[in-house]
């Protein structure tokens, strides 16, 4: 049962990741592409956090009287994912700034329209 549950979570993460990818490939709207990209990044973050999980363990802040490796979840993925979140945030920020500029110029965020505008 546990095994199945475990795999289901991985499967869900995989589905999320692939959703993101599919959105990026398929959507023609730049904003939607960006959102899809975010979904993809988030799925990776969840994936890492899932890896660091331990059954019956608490969050990795030491509490008096609670000792032993098995009592706390793995802090490393958390630390890594803090970095990854910040990176994802920064990327999104830059992307939004770009979209603002594109909207300014082409008054549209649909890829075909923009490409037509670029050729002019």
């Amino acid at each position: 049962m546990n095994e199945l549950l475990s795999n289901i979570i991985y499967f869900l993460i995989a589905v999320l990741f692939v959703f993101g990818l599919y959105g990026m490939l398929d959507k023609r709207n730049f904003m939607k592409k960006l959102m899809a990209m975010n979904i993809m990044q988030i799925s990776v973050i969840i994936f890492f956090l899932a890896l660091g999980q331990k059954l019956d363990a608490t969050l990795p802040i030491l509490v008096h009287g609670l000792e032993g490796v098995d009592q706390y979840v793995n802090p490393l993925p958390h630390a890594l994912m803090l970095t990854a979140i910040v990176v994802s945030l920064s990327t999104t920020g830059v992307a939004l700034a770009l979209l603002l500029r594109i909207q300014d110029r082409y008054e549209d965020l649909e890829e075909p329209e923009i490409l037509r505008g670029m050729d002019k």
Partner: protein
Amino acid sequence: MRILSMVFSIMLLGLLMFGSLGLPLIGDKDSPAAEHVSPRYIEKAYKETGSPNLVTAVLADYRSYDTLGETTVIFIAGAATILILRTAAGRKNAEGGSDE
């Protein structure tokens, strides 16, 4: 094109699911990730860094260099945003939207 991306996505989904078969169970206390590097953080971080928040200890001390990179990324985000929004916007008026 749509079909192609669909096919590619489904293939990737299959791959990811196949790959996850080899991963440790979620919550497994004996998984490599729980056994190899991280025990030291949990056991010694407070002694070594004086920080009871293990995530902070890892983030700001054991892997502080990553965090430097992270901070730099934020700085880049700010710098890039300003470069894109402000300096380029100035050219819009000056050069009538030159594309080159």
